[in-house]
């Protein structure tokens, strides 16, 4: 597979910024900051996709880049802000794991991902780098899901995982066939909408969006 020639200096910087945006999310207690960090991360992903599109000359990747920008960097953050305004959720996020240990665990997960990515035979340095960041996002997203109380932050966790996978896909294989990408975007959008409706229902039924209250079904 050919190395990306254009932007070979730009790509590592972008990928590093994506990792930084994840830590912004991990290190913030304010819901809006988290949503903004997610939007910023998606924006960076769109730029990565555009760089890949330019350097490989495959025009359908521009479509993917554009869709990322519209759906993940605009619509989904908007939906989030709207939901939290409508149900009047508290701005502060409640955590099971505090900020500083969260950041430490995040760092540890990055190191683990780096070694995992080394285990896989990847022929270029850049892809290897991207893969380790992609796995970091996967694990940090998972960690955010289990360490935050609010239903909305759990949604954010899933979306971060998805962003990680997207980064892996775009930098390893220069994107999947367009129709598949479209399907994945469609699924992400529907997932956010249905989960959004569920957040409303949880709020209406339990008068809170803390997932702490969801613990009656056991055994």
């Amino acid at each position: 597979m050919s190395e990306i020639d254009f932007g070979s200096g730009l790509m590592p910087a972008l990928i590093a910024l994506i990792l930084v945006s994840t830590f912004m999310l991990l290190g913030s207690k304010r819901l809006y900051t988290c949503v903004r960090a997610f939007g910023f991360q998606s924006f960076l992903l769109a730029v990565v996709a555009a760089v890949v599109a330019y350097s490989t000359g495959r025009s359908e990747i521009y479509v993917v880049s554009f869709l990322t920008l519209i759906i993940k960097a605009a619509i989904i953050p908007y939906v989030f802000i709207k939901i939290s305004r409508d149900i009047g959720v508290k701005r502060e996020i409640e955590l099971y794991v505090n900020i500083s240990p969260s950041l430490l665990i995040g760092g540890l997960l990055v190191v683990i991902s780096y070694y995992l990515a080394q285990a896989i035979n990847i022929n270029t340095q850049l892809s290897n780098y991207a893969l380790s960041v992609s796995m970091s996002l996967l694990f940090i997203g998972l960690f955010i899901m289990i360490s935050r109380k609010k239903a909305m932050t759990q949604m954010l966790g899933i979306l971060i995982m998805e962003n990680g996978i997207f980064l892996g896909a775009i930098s390893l294989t220069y994107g999947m066939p367009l129709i598949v990408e479209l399907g994945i975007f469609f699924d992400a959008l529907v997932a956010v909408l249905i989960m959004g409706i569920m957040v409303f229902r949880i709020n209406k039924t339990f008068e809170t969006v803390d997932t702490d209250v969801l613990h009656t079904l056991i055994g």
Partner: protein
Amino acid sequence: MIKYLLLIPVLTALFCVIARTEKQIQTIGLVGSTATLIVGLTLVIDVFKHGTITTWESMLFADAFSAYLILITSLIGFAISMYLIGYMGRELKDGAIDLKRLRIYYVFYHLCIFSTLLVGVANDLGLWIAIEMTTLFSAPLIAINTKKSSIEATWKYLIICSVGITLALFGTILTYYAAVQVLGEGAGALSWVSLIAVADQFDPTLMKIAFVFILVGYGTKAGFVPMHTWLPDAHSEAQSPGSALLSGVVINCAVYGIIRFHIITSAAVGKEFSSSLLIMFGLMSLVIATPFIIMQRDHKRLLAYSSVEHMGIVALGFGFGGVLGIFGALLHMFNHSVTKSVLFFAAGNIRQKYGTTKIDPVSGIVKSMPYTGPMLVLGGLAITGSPPFGIFLSELTILAAGFMQGYIIISTLVLLLIMIIFAGFFNHINRMALSTPPEGITVGDASKWSLGAMMILVVFVVMLGVYIPPQFSDMIMQVVNIVNVVR
């Protein structure tokens, strides 16, 4: 043909949106599922007679394995849509749901059927999209109740399955990367066939990691222990038609996804790796489900844990491998789907009559419900693997394969667990079915539609135990040949 098969459920859902009365919704639903069944069967026969069909630049693809899944989906889907008329009609009359909710239920039910059919015909990468869709479209079927517990179950279902499926996407992408390294970037849409053809050149480490992600990801959806935690909640909190759909149809889709990648991984790194993982998860599911079945107090959760058990058995069958093991596993998928649907239908009738899903307050069903009662006992006998029903035969086949392939200790353990589950499960059924009904329960059964749906499926439960039509076994043999690539 494939396009029509996918179009019909979508159209049915659309018509349900604009339908005005209860009667219209029910008629549209039934006509839609009948059409799906007919087109589905035609497609199945076509595939088994003339081989693989591909359309739409090979994005859609149906080989024998797909056809087998479509057969199960369209059959169970049809039975459920009959049952829906009786069950939901009663709910509507009782005021448990209103017309708006009924409409939502029908719309999402048919969308869910669409997505499960899409799982069957999606080629390679599209599979992920289809399986994610089954999660999204079936979630509203659980949330149709406004009870707190239903909301909790839906949220768990959405979150846990979305995470699982995201991991599966990562596995899918790694597989795609492995393929791109061999085939070059221009390969475009990859098909199952072209992947298997070059699978032996895949990077083995990459493929192993990919399969682990796929197995954990789709395994979440299939209810393998320890990723099963959402399943008893979702399957028991859904209304009975939804439970039947989840246990009888959706769960098979996830297993189908795993086996598709099991085939590729076997071709790439030899079959020991993925087979032993399947056996491990299968055995764990069986071991963990057993105490929950014995100690269960809720009859719908009982059925849900039984689904965990049976998916474990299916995984074991595929894991043991060989013609016999795979044949048994495939047969077991079919048998489990029909039997479990009958039982969930019975559970729905019981809930509507006794007003509870707990086991303790329910007794004397055979007396109070002259049709549901016997069918519950029959289904209970069948699902626990007693002769002469279908599941007995498929479990026997799988165990025979286990012993033949040299998994003596595991097979003995499985046999033991199945016996314990039989005793525990049937004890519950016994208590519910026999003795006298509590006071205030009058004799009278569910509507003809509900009973009709159950009877159709009971025919398969009974028949497949004593006689497997040669056409049907030929069909399964064709699927076995697809799965059994590394001999």
